[in-house]
């Protein structure tokens, strides 16, 4: 320090004060993220409690009819849950094989140059706004489905599931690719040394070694599919429908929230509270899946030096 001798101490004190002020500001910024979580939980919780004062939780979780905005309202959430899970299951059927095989191709079969082209291309899929996927589903996939299977409704779960599946391919492929690439070279070389073919090395050595990351990517992808909103709102329709038939019009939890908030749901009304009750259900399910994905990743991780 080249401070002029006499003021050394007060200079240091001033400097310390400044350091502390900045430190506190930085801490408060980090605390904001915690505040957001507290806010989300508090808001969902308050309105959900208000909702359950009017509607019994048993009716909500076991009822098979969802007509909350009708004259004679029914508050059974099962049709919305089945809608969300139908779309998510269909999306998983598309995204899991495509994503995993793409990841194996990127990590095991393609050289750095091919990989450098393919990986960013796949990641563009993740950057396209979901409303665009909705448009694609409605104007391309649905007409295609209806030519093959004429009994398909204009709005149907299958079209939404296909498009959401495409949307989450990069989630699955990127995370699985990371997991596969984290498997040490020595393991592969050991297997080759025993005379294994590339196929055998990939499927019997590398994939099992990366299994925790791969499973975590599946769970995270499905969680994204459940939380997906615009594409399913546009393509799957707004018909709460307890069905496993993907060719019918359905409504997901997210699509209901959009539909209800586009309409007139005054603050404090039961319609307003249903938004948060459904939102809470959605939040709990996706949070549980995200936590499960992190747990799988940590619990079953193979450690290599």
């Amino acid at each position, binding site marked *: 320090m080249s401070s002029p001798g006499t003021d050394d101490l007060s200079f240091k004190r001033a400097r310390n004060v400044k350091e502390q002020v900045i430190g506190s500001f930085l801490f408060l910024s980090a605390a904001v993220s915690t505040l957001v*979580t507290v806010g989300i939980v508090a808001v969902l919780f308050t309105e959900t409690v208000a909702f359950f004062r009017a509607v019994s939780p048993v009716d909500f979780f076991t009822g098979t009819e969802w007509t909350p905005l009708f004259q004679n309202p029914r508050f059974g959430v099962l049709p919305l849950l089945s809608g969300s899970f139908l779309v998510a299951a269909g999306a998983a059927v598309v995204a899991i094989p495509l994503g995993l095989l793409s990841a194996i191709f990127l990590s095991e079969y393609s050289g750095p140059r091919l990989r450098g082209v393919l990986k960013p291309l796949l990641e563009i899929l993740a950057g396209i706004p979901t409303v665009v996927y909705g448009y694609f589903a409605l104007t391309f996939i649905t007409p295609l489905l209806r030519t093959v299977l004429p009994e398909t409704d204009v709005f149907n779960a299958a079209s939404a599931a296909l498009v959401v599946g495409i949307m989450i391919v990069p989630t699955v492929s990127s995370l699985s690719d990371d997991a596969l690439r984290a498997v040490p070279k020595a393991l592969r070389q050991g297997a080759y040394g025993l005379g294994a073919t590339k196929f055998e090395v990939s499927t019997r050595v590398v994939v099992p070694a990366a299994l925790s990351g791969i499973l975590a990517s599946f769970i995270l992808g499905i969680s994204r599919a459940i939380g997906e909103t615009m594409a399913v709102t546009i393509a799957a329709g707004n018909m709460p429908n307890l069905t496993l038939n993907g060719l019918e019009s359905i409504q997901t939890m997210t699509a209901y929230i959009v539909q209800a908030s586009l309409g007139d749901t005054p603050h404090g009304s039961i319609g307003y509270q249903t938004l948060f009750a459904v939102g809470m259900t959605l939040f709990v399910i996706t949070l549980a899946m995200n936590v499960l994905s992190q747990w799988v990743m940590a619990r079953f991780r193979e450690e290599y030096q």
Partner: protein
Amino acid sequence: MSGSASPLGGTPSANDRRRRLFGSIFAITCGAATLVGVLALVVLLADVLRDGLPRFDWALLTNFASRFPERAGVKAALAGSIWILGLTALFAFPVSVAAAIYLEEYAPRNRWTRLIQLNIANLAGVPSIVYGMLGLAVFVRALGFDRSIIAGALTLSILILPVIIIASQEAVRAVPDSIRQAAYGLGATRWQVVSSQVLPMAMPGILTGTILALSRAVGETAPLIMVGAVGFIAFTPTGLGDPFTVLPLQIYNWISRPQADFQQIAAAGILVLLSLLMAMNAAAILLRNRYQKDR
């Protein structure tokens, strides 16, 4: 691998041939799966271009929304998206970067810090519509911002907060420790080390992450529907309290109309949105390349 491998120089056994055949089939399947993803992207873009290009002209950018599809344009929506983009950057950037600096440079390695970190990771996985509900209850109702630009921008800011924090943390973590130690060795305080050494080195990475997070905000629809952005607005916003619409919402509004003409204008709107996103991503890539050259 159960079969006997052929001895060196010998003719391959039937088993070996089968194994190699399996290998080739598998390799082709994997390659095909990757191509399906790429192909989906190509078909999607072709679909939008085919429908939207005829309507993608200057009038599209200068006309407001209209009941008549031939006169409809994205002027209000584009202006709204740019407002939202600017305000979201203004709110989210300083807080996220400060949070990232705290977590990487200041925070003690204890249970609380791990909890904050875990919380941020989980926030990044919360569906965007849930942020919309928070925005609706807090910004629109409790703070009384009503259905305004500022309510929308604040909602999207907290939505992309975790994304920018995580990207900034990675950028800060990538600054070599030797730089910090050298600065401390010269008597610098913690903040001097951070502000004059760590931040300048991490800034390109932070900015790249921020731009990518902002392009996510620009494409968001659902949370803005929750906070009451509307699909039909015939003026450009002039202040923070104005009602507003954004490109994705305008597109959604058009998609949900049955007439084919509105489908076309929706596709043209998508082209505007994708152009905006491409420009932002190009900026991010330029930054990244410059950064890599400097190293």
